[in-house]
């Protein structure tokens, strides 16, 4: 099955920069990846690694000034979204590709009812009557497990709890059965119990609606349950990509090693000291010319500071941007 499937989304050499008074911030510095139909891909990385900007660039939601997609291609079913006019893009946004934002309080309009905000989307993209719209919305709200959807239809965002609002956002994102849903930190501002509900819901909806999901998060544990493929980003680049087993059981990039060992596990038996990644991420106004992680990497070699490493494929579908995988490099073992 793998390889034969035509991906729904293909991102090629995407570069997004922000032109500020102090200089040009190169937030995304040339990334390639694709998403297959019905697949859930996780994009993991710390603040400032470019994961959210990637999501916004795909949605064409980068505002100029200061932001600008300077090069690349984002093709959805063969159409390059970056070449579309704003009005053409508006027909696709929400209908074929939609986004769930981190903070449901600021991304829902506080002055409009939930029902109104959901119907806006359906009226814009689907040619249906008012009665049908309402019926469809109630259906959607119960699909995201909101109790008494008829009441919620007439309620305002502030009347709902954080978890409910996030569910309303998910209903909104799914209302037109898009090909792809980009979820940007959908669980960061909610409690763990609500996070579990939302992840469970996304899992369930993925199989029901057959949408693909791009889950953007800083929390490796969150992608472990939902995603079958993981992309690790660092300083605007994809430093490692592979399926869940490859990235979690056999990671190749020292940054991924660090990330995995920096978080305590609730199931850890013996208390171990957390391993840290020393230092801070590089300044993306003047990114280093070699490997972006070299100055924090305890395995860095001379070449790491001089030349950005290419991707090395270790297995089918597993690629890593790291010189350690070059034949000439010394073999290092990841300390467990």
């Amino acid at each position, binding site marked *: 099955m793998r390889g034969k499937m035509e991906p729904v989304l293909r991102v090629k050499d995407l570069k997004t920069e922000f032109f500020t008074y102090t200089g040009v911030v190169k937030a995304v510095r040339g990334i390639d990846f694709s998403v297959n139909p019905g697949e859930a891909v996780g994009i993991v990385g*710390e*603040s400032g690694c470019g994961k959210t900007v990637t999501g916004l660039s795909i949605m064409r939601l980068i505002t100029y000034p200061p932001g600008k997609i300077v090069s690349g291609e984002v093709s959805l079913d063969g159409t390059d979204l970056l070449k579309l006019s704003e009005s053409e893009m508006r027909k696709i946004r929400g209908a074929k590709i939609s986004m769930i934002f981190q903070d449901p309080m600021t991304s829902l309009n506080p002055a409009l009812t939930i029902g109104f905000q959901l119907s806006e989307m359906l009226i814009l993209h689907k040619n249906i009557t008012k009665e049908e719209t309402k019926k469809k919305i109630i259906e959607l709200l119960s699909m995201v497990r909101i*109790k008494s959807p008829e009441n919620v239809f007439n309620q305002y965002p502030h009347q709902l*709890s*954080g*978890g*409910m609002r996030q569910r309303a956002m998910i209903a909104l994102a799914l209302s037109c059965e898009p090909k792809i849903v980009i979820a940007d930190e959908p669980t960061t501002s909610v*409690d*763990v*119990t*609500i*996070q*579990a*509900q939302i*992840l*469970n819901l996304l899992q369930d909806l993925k199989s029901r609606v057959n949408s693909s999901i791009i889950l953007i998060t*800083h*929390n*490796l*544990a*969150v992608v*472990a*349950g939902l995603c079958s493929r993981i992309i690790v980003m660092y300083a605007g680049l994809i430093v490692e990509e592979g399926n*869940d*087993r490859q990235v*979690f*059981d056999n990671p190749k990039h020292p940054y991924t090693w*660090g*990330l*995995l060992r*920096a*978080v*305590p*596990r*609730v*199931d*850890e038996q013996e*208390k171990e*000291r*957390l*391993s*840290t*990644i*020393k230092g*801070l991420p590089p300044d993306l106004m003047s990114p280093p010319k070699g490997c972006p992680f070299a100055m924090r990497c305890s395995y860095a070699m001379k070449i790491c500071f001089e030349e950005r490493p290419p991707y090395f494929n270790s297995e089918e579908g597993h690629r890593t941007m790291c010189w350690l995988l070059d034949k000439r490099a010394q073999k290092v073992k990841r300390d467990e």
Partner: protein
Amino acid sequence: MENEIILEVQSLKKYFSIKSGLFASTVGDTVKAVDDISFKVKKGETVGLVGETGSGKTTVGRTIIKLYEPTAGSIIFEGIDIAKLNENEMKKVRRKLQMIFQDPYASLDPRLTVEDIVKEPMEIHNLYKPNERKERATYILNLLGLDPEHLTRFPHEFSGGQRQRIGLARALAVEPEFIVADEPVSALDVSIQAQIINTFEDLQEKFNLTYLFISHDLAMVKHISNSIIVMYLGRIMEIAPSGEIYKKPLHPYTQALISAVPIPDPKVEKSRERILLEGDISSNIKLPKGCRFRPRCKYAMDICKEVEPVLEETEAGHSVACHLYKK
């Protein structure tokens, strides 16, 4: 070795009354943020306080150092009931009881240099001679992995992790015994979280500090704490040694909470049976009769509707407030 008890909280209550209107009269409802809780903390240990938003964990932390005046109950710190002390008497105790706040961006005065920030508590408590204070500040900064050069800089020049270190430096400046850390790493990136947590552990060893570590991140709390207190709607549901909380959680709420924490391992995560809690935490204005967790509990029995369970010890160091464990 049995450590002495440094802090004992007895039947602590903190209610907030809801005031509204032009003359700010109480409209009758009270929020029972902390509703009759008792626990003990041993010297040199870390007690973790976990719970969802609205469980009252932050209020507990703030009431213990008397940023909030307790409604009832006592807080015995080193043998003195500080709940009864007035502001003047409290000042002496407060040197020993310091707090680290969640948001390193909001908790440092943007107009003060790092030197002023770290020296200010020494000035307030009249510690060290004025000409020795800078030396002390330099020493602490070094200890926390910050460059003494940073003394002349302002908070906005630092990253989140560095700011949290400055917050720690400010707390340590006055040689505290007990530190309440309220979500100290929640606002930081994972790789920075680990650095700060390790610093916390090093300092504890060096100065024999006691921590009350408040967080919603159960994995982190389990990592750093000796024992864990689980709170729900202002009440303690369970107290357990941190080694046992994962292996043998007793309260249905603790079980659900642990099961909700994702594990960074697809093998475990994709095959795990998950207990999903229905709905959200209820409001603590109109508390349900009986057990407060009952509306979300799948084991709820008839007695749970009527009688609120009390915290009872099931074995040494492990207590639970649940009718399921009544003999």
